[in-house]
């Protein structure tokens, strides 16, 4: 059996490990155009801030690959030739497969304004992007960040840590409006301001100005201009579909797969950001851009490719991230609607966060320790925890486990209810019942 995996992210690596757990003999080949292979994509944020060196992000050595009997090819897949069961590499050579996994991920939606191709306009998809940013980020110079979600803040924090003056442009009136509530956006914005970031609301970028062949400034819709040396954007991501477009594989916004991660071709699977996976619980196919679902999908795809039938069951999505230095956990359904700063989905985002059945909101805390609960009829359906994370782990388990909160539901909804205490007490009893 010959397994080929396109893409070297976490979905691909999880698939390799799963295949090897079942089939020690088959040939396993990973093809990726990223010369850096498998590294922690979320870790790039901490490389930008200087908390890590680049070499700390690489996750497998040559020795590890040898042990797994994994062949890594640094090449671009130019076509999938389904009838031949082969890939075309770099427009010339062929690589045959028996089972194929498409795990090519997603990439930043390109900025489409005049001047967007100038040197000094940057994004954060890959290791090479991070290296490019560090090369261009000069102490004392000015940067403009455009976009929303987690990546826009990672760029802001990274550029700030490198000593740049940062202007952050928001199209609407607040940060990450489809996931955070107004208060949470305000907490983040206040902290950004305290760090010296200049925020511009209702600011629509319409052009990037040139100076000596490079970025020299930006122009806003209202006619204002702002001189700057760097423009960093994160206006959303999109699954990389170029390769699959004309293959006859079923597509929607991503590659459509069933709960076994199989496409409409029984020998081709897809996992990670590129996959739009069917969720048997909700009956819908959704996009996620989160590390752990990508890992779980890759793992499930790998098992199925190696002949072990397994279903991927999407658990309540959650993400822990740092927003303006504040640890923030987002669990289950918490937001709604659209975000003007992001087209479609952002990195570190899950569409499920905006699937909000009727819910009642209870809030607690003040600026730096903040908690918001989304309360359904009997269960918690989502939570946002900013600052102190003591309760984020219990909340994650309670949302995922569908804990019946009837005994404390009324109390949670009283004005000024001590929701942290109520949750903590309830958790102690509940965890005993479910033996966590």
């Amino acid at each position, binding site marked *: 059996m010959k397994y080929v995996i396109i893409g070297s992210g*976490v979905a691909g690596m999880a698939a390799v490990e799963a295949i090897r757990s079942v089939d020690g003999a088959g040939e396993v080949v990973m093809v990726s155009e990223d010369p850096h292979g498998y590294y*922690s*994509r*979320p*870790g790039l944020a*901490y490389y930008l*801030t*200087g*908390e*890590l*060196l680049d070499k*700390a*992000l690489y*996750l497998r050595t040559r020795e590890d690959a040898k042990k797994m009997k994994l062949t890594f090819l640094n090449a671009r897949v130019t076509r999938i030739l389904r009838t031949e069961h082969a890939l075309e590499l770099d427009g010339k050579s062929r690589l045959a497969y028996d089972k194929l996994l498409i795990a090519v991920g997603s990439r930043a939606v390109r900025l489409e304004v005049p001047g967007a191709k100038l040197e000094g306009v940057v994004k954060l998809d890959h290791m090479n992007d991070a290296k490019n940013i560090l090369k261009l980020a000069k102490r004392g110079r000015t940067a403009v960040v455009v976009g929303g979600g987690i990546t826009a803040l990672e760029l802001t*924090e990274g550029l*700030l*840590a490198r000593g740049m003056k940062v202007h952050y442009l928001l199209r609407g009136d607040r940060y990450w409006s489809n996931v955070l509530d107004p208060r949470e956006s305000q907490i983040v914005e206040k902290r950004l301001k305290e*760090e010296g970031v200049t925020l511009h609301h209702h600011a629509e970028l319409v052009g990037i100005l040139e100076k000596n062949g490079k970025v020299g400034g930006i122009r806003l819709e209202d006619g204002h201009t702002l001189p700057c040396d760097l423009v960093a954007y994160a206006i959303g991501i999109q699954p990389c579909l170029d390769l699959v477009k004309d293959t006859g594989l079923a597509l929607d916004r991503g590659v459509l797969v069933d709960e076994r991660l199989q496409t409409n071709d029984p020998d081709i699977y897809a996992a990670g950001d590129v996959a739009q996976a069917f969720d048997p619980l909700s009956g819908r196919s959704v996009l996620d851009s989160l*590390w*752990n679902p990508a890992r779980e999908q890759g793992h499930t795809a790998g098992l199925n490719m190696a002949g072990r039938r397994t279903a991927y069951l999407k*658990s309540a999505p*959650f993400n*822990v*991230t*740092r927003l*303006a*230095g504040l*640890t923030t*956990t987002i669990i289950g359904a918490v937001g709604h609607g659209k975000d003007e700063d992001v087209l479609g989905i952002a990195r570190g985002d899950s569409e499920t966060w905006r699937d909000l059945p009727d819910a009642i909101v209870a809030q607690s805390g003040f600026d730096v320790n903040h908690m918001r609960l989304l309360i359904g009829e009997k269960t918690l359906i989502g939570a946002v925890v900013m600052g102190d*994370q003591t309760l*984020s*782990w219990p909340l994650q388990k309670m949302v995922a486990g569908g804990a019946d909160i009837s005994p404390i539901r009324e109390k949670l909804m009283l004005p000024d209810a001590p929701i942290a205490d109520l949750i903590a007490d309830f958790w102690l009893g509940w965890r005993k019942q479910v033996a966590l």
Partner: protein
Amino acid sequence: MSFINVFKSDAKRHTSLASGQVVPDPTRCVQCGICSYNCPIGIDVRAHAWRNEPVKHSECLTCGECVARCPRGVLRFVQTDLFKRRPA
């Protein structure tokens, strides 16, 4: 930057926990490596988080560096001598 200092000062809050063990929640981990990078004796905490294994390393100082610095709240100290205290 002060963003990062927030975490440096955090590290000091965790004093040694003699009978504790570092336990990961792998579903939160993004394999960034900040834990391994900051472990004073070079334990590969990240690899433990990937494999969902507690850090049983005999040389672990239980200094808490990894727990405090992880940006995703993956790592917790769990007391290991709980059972000993219970009557048989």
